[in-house]
């Protein structure tokens, strides 16, 4: 029996769900968004501002894709959902009926009620419209202040620096992103920010934003009472679930839209996935709200299965993530807490350049691999995922590290240095097992 699946939100979660429903069924599918006509990669917004890409390049599918796959697209703003009559009501007064409703409304930028947070030239960065605003707001600007030391904050710094705008970066923590990164890694990024002429101010918070007579930002005042003149302020203190209309529609919410492991809300036939969903009981080792590209994709994949008749619980594999901080690439597999305490222990290696490092977290008793952080070296997801599943010991991991290397050809190999340091620290004599070089290409 064919149903009408309506998905609100055309980000990675909603679109992945739509694509997988299409793969698995002949249901009719409608995707609604007020942000953009077509799906684009939110993570690529920064590259548009920097001029690496144009907006059209950030669309993962060509425009013909949607019609070809019979996925209807509606660009309207949803005002409310009438769950009793199964109707989605738009701001223009029109409406559309559904059999199954998927809420994938994403996030919105946090604002904590600072004085002056709505002045002209003050903004967050999440939506396409934010990017358009930023283009406008940074015209002719020579100095900017960014509040909040997370991923969006450093992306915004990079964006502004690409246009030679001076950046003062206020970070509440002791080091950049050190609520996620262990201190050595965080300090590495501190230094790298300096290399890119970002004026990083640690343990600094925003107290107030001041404006000129035209209500345009003119300076910020920090918690230390310092006044910093600027013409642009980036508020990048995290994002929260975008739940304005679901809240008014009788769908149970807390911080996000409350769902169980099947992404079911309290209302039958209404589901929520992606950034906007909040698990009543999070999967083991996971947060109740997952705001990552990859998790959004997995939510969409899983829910599509349920919608198409095979009720499936969200069951994510080993955690992984990646980012890029200016020139330094970061990958992580498994769990690496920012503060490593018993029963965990860690091994850390850093290259003399201070821009490449590798951290291995393990269980102190069993010596089992728990997770890795790697900066400036690319490593294979598939290999670490397998090693984590197999419960490999760290000695095994270090000996087989070349197998996990994903750096391009001719890159310097750091495994010998890494294992030498490990041997020295642990009084062992491990030797690298695999090799990856010119000869290996002939004998593989």
């Amino acid at each position, binding site marked *: 029996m064919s149903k009408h699946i309506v998905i609100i939100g055309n980000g990675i979660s909603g679109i992945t769900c739509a694509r997988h429903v299409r793969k698995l069924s002949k249901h009719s599918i409608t995707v609604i968004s007020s942000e953009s006509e077509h799906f684009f990669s939110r993570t*690529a917004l920064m590259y548009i501002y920097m001029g*690496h*890409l144009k907006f059209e390049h950030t669309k993962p599918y060509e425009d013909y894709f949607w019609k070809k796959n019979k996925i209807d697209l509606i660009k309207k703003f949803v005002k409310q959902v009438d769950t009793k009559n199964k109707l989605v009501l738009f701001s223009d007064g029109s409406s559309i009926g559904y059999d199954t409703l998927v809420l994938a409304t994403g996030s919105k930028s946090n604002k904590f009620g600072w004085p002056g947070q709505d002045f002209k030239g003050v903004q967050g960065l999440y939506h396409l419209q934010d990017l358009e605003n930023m283009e406008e707001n940074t015209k002719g600007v020579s100095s900017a202040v960014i509040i909040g030391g997370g991923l969006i904050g450093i992306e915004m710094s990079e964006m502004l620096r690409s246009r030679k705008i001076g950046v003062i970066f206020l970070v509440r923590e002791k080091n950049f992103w050190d609520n996620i990164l262990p201190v050595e890694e965080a300090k590495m990024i501190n230094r790298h920010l300096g290399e890119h002429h970002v004026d990083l101010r640690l343990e600094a918070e925003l107290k107030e934003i001041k404006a000129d007579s035209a209500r345009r930002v003119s300076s910020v005042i920090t918690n230390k009472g310092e006044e910093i003149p600027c013409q642009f302020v980036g508020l990048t203190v995290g994002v929260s679930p975008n739940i304005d209309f679901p809240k008014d529609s009788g769908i149970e919410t807390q911080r996000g839209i409350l769902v169980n492991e099947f992404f079911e809300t309290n209302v039958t036939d209404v589901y929520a996935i992606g950034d906007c969903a909040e698990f009543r009981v999070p999967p083991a080792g996971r947060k109740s709200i997952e705001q990552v590209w990859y998790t959004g994709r997995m939510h969409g994949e899983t829910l599509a299965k349920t919608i198409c008749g095979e009720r499936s619980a969200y069951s994510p594999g080993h955690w992984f993530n990646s980012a890029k901080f200016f*020139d330094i690439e970061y*990958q992580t597999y498994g769990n690496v807490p920012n503060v490593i305490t018993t029963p965990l222990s860690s091994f850390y290696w850093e290259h003399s350049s201070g821009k490449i490092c590798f951290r291995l977290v393990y269980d102190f008793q069993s010596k089992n691999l728990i997770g890795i952080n790697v900066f400036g070296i690319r490593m294979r997801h598939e290999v670490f995922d397998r090693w984590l599943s197999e419960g490999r010991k760290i000695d095994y991991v270090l000996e087989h590290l070349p197998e996990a290397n994903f750096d391009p050809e001719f890159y310097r190999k750091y495994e010998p240095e890494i294992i030498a340091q490990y041997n020295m620290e642990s009084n062992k004599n491990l030797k690298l097992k695999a090799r990856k070089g010119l000869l290996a290409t002939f004998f593989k």
Partner: protein
Amino acid sequence: MENNPSISISNPLPPETDTIQKIGLILFSIGILLFIIAGIGVGSEKPILFFSLSIGLSVGGALIYFIKKYLKEPAGVKNNRVWQNSLTSRGIFGFIFGIIITGFYVVLYWFPSVLDNLIRLMDPLSNLIRGKDADQWFLYGTLYTLAIVVMGIKAILKYRHSNYQIVRTSSIMFFQLGFAYLIPAVLQLFNHPEFYFSYFWPLKYEYLFPSTVNYLSEQPGALGVFMIFWGGVMTFIATPILTYFFGKRWYCSWVCGCGGLANTAGDPFRQLSDKSLKAWKIERWMIHSVLVFIVVTTSLLWINSYYQGAVLGNISGGFAKTYGFLIGAIFSGVIGVGFYPIMGTRVWCRFGCPMAAYLGILQKYISKFRITTNGGQCISCGNCSNACEMGIDVQAYAQKGQNIIRASCVGCGMCATVCPRGVLNLENGPLKGRINDNPILIGNKEAKLIL
């Protein structure tokens, strides 16, 4: 304040174009100006003076500018503003530049007398390395090689965070300077035939034409015969073997001068290639048609030569002439390079080059080469597709976790270089599992069951 040192005091914002860069630009401009003045008339009167001043100043100035520009910033991807700059985003300057290079090719091929003063400018160098006066092709070859060397140095500075790009660009420069410039020149100096050991049939189609083979075989000494042998071996034996191990990149982005110019002088324009499915369809028809065209032409010439003109008369010669004009001159030269600022750098390699077609077939069906994707790390940002000069929608594969196996991929490695999440890698691996049409994105236990 111990914990928050203000970096701005010790690390002030650097100016975008500093004094040294400006000096470089001024020297470059004077050099170009002198070159133009030489072209108008004085070049033939004082060739040595104008040659050394114009080439020396423009090359030196450009190098000063690039060295300062790239070394003052940390190593890393340098694509800022390529889509905002008029020259590199099909803006007015892009079109003007395109018209200028296209015009240069038209003049070079069909009105070389216009360039006479510039050709005379090259006489001293030509006499030095070839033992004879310059012609339009020596002028072209010299400028072409200079472009690859100077812009090659620039590419190395720009991509110095990637050893793959450093090694590959050095290889391109080496083969252009040595194999496609100095060796053919020195061969002429010693009265041997001008021969390019880095170009083979079907790109250098004449090398297996009966006329060339006959001419070479009549050369005194063994060198002519060796050249015939070299051409045949490279086309029919070395090419399949090297492509099996490394993919077509061993040639297209490591040796070939066309690819060499694209990856050095053309680098600022690489993003302009069309990534649409439609373009891919046109590409497949066009490039394979050219391959068929040259195979037919060469076969007809040999048949005609075998029957000594009795059967085909002038038909085979007509084919060869048509191919030479349409493909050899208009496509590979005028459009191939002239359209850099409009259609991207590999128009010829992608739509026209029969060698690329031949290598592509080998790469697709019998090669260990592929671009692998790293588990589930792709964020669909589009940087890889944007950087692909061959117009491959790399992202379409990467976001599915699928290996990229495409006949057209020249293995320049730029998709892997610009990927912000370390997702792509050029690899030579086992044939088993090379094509993975139903890949799984790692991370979701559920998804393994449904895909």
